[in-house]
C-alpha cells in the first residue's frame, strides 16, 4: 500500500494503512519537531508549531522581583518603567566562586570529589560516633555495674600452702644422708618410710564416711610399735616429726578409748591437722619409698647378734651341728673350750 511520509514527504510502501512515517528516523524527527526542538543540521521549527510566549503583568504592584543583574536596575514592561527590587536574600544565596583555569579543572574536580568523599565519610563518622559513644557508655556502665570477680580460695589448700611455707621438714627430709650422719640417716629413712605409710592411712581414713574399728586398731598398734622401737628412740633430736608421731598416737588412743565400743566409727581430722598431714605426706612422697600397710613391717630392725641367733634357730638340727657357730656354742657350754685354752697355755 502506497503512502507519503508526513515528515520528509517521500513515498513509501506501508503494510499498515495507519503508518505515517517512512522510517524510524523520520518518526523521531517529527516528534522533536512537534515539541519545538531543533537539531543542528535540521530545518527550523515551523511557526505554527512554536509555543506562543505568554506575558503576565503584575496586577496591583509596580514592583517586579527580578534576579540579580549588574546591568539592569530597571525593567521595562509595556513601555512602563518598573522599579526593580533586588531580592537581597536571593543574592546572598548566590555567592560567586571565581572559576579556576581550564587546566586545573580536572585536578579540582578530583579534589572536590575527594573532599566530597571526605565530607561524606566525616558525615558518616559523625553519624556513627554517637552510636559508638553510646555503646561505649553502655559498656562502661556494664563494667561498672558488673562487680569484679572475687577469687575464692579453698581453706584446706590455703592451710597446706601455709604449712609448706613454714617448711616443717625441709631439706632434712629431702636429703637425710647429706644432713645427718650415716647411722642417723639410716634410722630416719626407716622411720620415714613407716610414717609415710601411716600418714597416708590416716588421710585416706578421714575421707571415708565410716571406718571399721579394727582398721583403726591396726593403725594404732602400728604407731605403738613405731614409737616403742629402739630406732625411733635413737632418732636425732632435730628430727622434725618425732613429736607429731607421738601426738598422733595419743590422739588415736583417745579416740579408741571414747569410741572403742563401736564397730563402725567416723574418723575425722581437723582441717589444720589434715593440712599438716597432707603437707608432710607430699614432702615425703618424693623422697621415701611407697609401701603398702599390709606389706610393711613395723617391728624394729634387729641387731646383728639377734640376726645370728635367728639364723641358727631356723636351721635344722643336722645343719646346726655342721655349723661352726653351733659347735662353738656347744663347746662353750660344755666347758671344753676352757680346758683346751688351759692346755694351750700350759
Amino acid at each position, binding site marked *: 500500500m502506497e503512502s507519503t511520509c508526513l515528515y520528509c514527504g517521500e513515498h513509501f510502501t506501508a503494510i499498515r494503512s495507519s503508518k505515517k512515517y517512512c522510517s524510524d528516523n523520520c518518526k523521531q524527527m517529527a516528534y522533536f519537531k512537534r515539541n519545538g526542538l531543533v537539531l543542528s543540521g535540521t530545518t527550523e521549527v515551523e511557526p505554527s508549531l512554536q509555543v506562543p510566549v505568554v506575558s503576565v503583568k503584575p496586577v496591583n504592584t509596580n514592583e517586579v522581583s527580578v534576579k540579580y543583574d549588574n546591568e539592569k536596575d530597571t525593567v521595562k514592561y509595556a513601555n512602563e518603567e518598573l522599579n526593580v527590587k533586588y531580592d537581597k536574600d536571593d543574592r546572598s544565596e548566590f555567592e560567586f566562586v571565581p572559576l579556576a583555569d581550564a587546566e586545573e579543572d580536572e585536578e579540582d574536580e578530583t579534589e572536590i570529589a575527594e573532599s566530597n568523599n571526605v565530607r561524606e565519610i566525616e558525615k558518616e563518622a559523625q553519624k556513627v560516633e554517637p552510636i559508638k559513644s553510646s555503646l561505649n557508655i553502655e559498656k562502661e556502665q556494664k563494667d561498672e555495674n558488673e562487680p569484679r570477680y572475687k577469687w575464692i580460695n579453698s581453706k584446706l589448700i590455703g592451710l597446706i600452702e601455709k604449712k609448706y611455707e613454714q617448711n616443717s621438714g625441709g631439706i632434712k627430709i629431702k636429703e637425710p644422708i647429706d644432713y645427718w650422719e650415716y647411722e642417723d640417716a639410716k634410722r630416719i629413712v626407716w622411720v620415714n618410710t613407716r610414717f609415710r605409710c601411716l600418714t597416708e592411712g590416716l588421710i*585416706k581414713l578421714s575421707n*571415708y564416711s565410716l571406718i571399721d574399728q579394727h582398721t583403726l586398731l591396726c593403725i594404732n598398734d602400728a604407731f605403738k610399735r613405731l614409737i616403742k622401737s629402739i630406732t625411733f628412740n635413737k632418732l636425732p633430736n632435730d628430727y622434725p616429726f618425732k613429736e607429731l608421731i607421738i601426738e598422733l598416737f595419743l590422739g588415736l588412743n583417745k579416740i579408741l578409748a571414747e569410741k572403742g565400743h563401736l564397730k563402725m566409727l567416723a574418723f575425722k581430722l581437723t582441717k589444720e591437722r589434715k593440712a599438716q598431714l597432707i*603437707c608432710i605426706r607430699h614432702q615425703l*612422697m618424693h623422697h621415701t619409698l611407697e609401701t603398702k600397710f599390709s606389706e610393711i613391717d613395723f617391728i624394729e630392725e634387729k641387731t646383728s647378734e639377734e640376726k645370728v641367733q635367728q639364723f641358727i634357730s631356723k636351721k635344722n638340727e643336722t645343719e646346726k651341728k655342721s655349723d661352726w657357730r653351733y659347735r662353738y656354742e656347744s663347746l662353750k657350754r660344755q666347758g671344753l673350750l676352757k680346758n683346751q685354752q688351759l692346755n694351750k697355755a700350759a
Partner: protein
Amino acid sequence: MKPLIYKTKDMENKLIVKLYKVPEDLLMDILRILFKNNIKHKIIGIQERQNIILLNVNFDLASIKNREAKENMEGILTDYSEYMKGLLGDTVLMLDEEDEENEY
C-alpha cells in the same frame, strides 16, 4: 522424650556442661563459687563411701564471670588432686564435657 533445644553454633560453643567430682574437703568452697556467681548446677550423684558428690555445672563462656568461676573451680580441684596424688585411687575430679545428644 527429651525436648529438642535449638542452638546457634555460637551458642553451642559458649554453653558447656561440665561434670565434676567434688570431695567433702572442697564442697563448701565449690558451692560458694556456684552460689555467689549464680551458676546453674545440679548434684547428680553421691559416692557415699568416699564422701564425694557428682556435680553437673552449666557454664556460659560468653560471660566473664562464668569463665573466671570455671577457672577458679578447676584451679582448686587441680591443686587438691595434686596434693592428694595417689590417695584418691582412680578418682578423677574433672571429667570430660558431656555431649547432649538431642541438641542441635
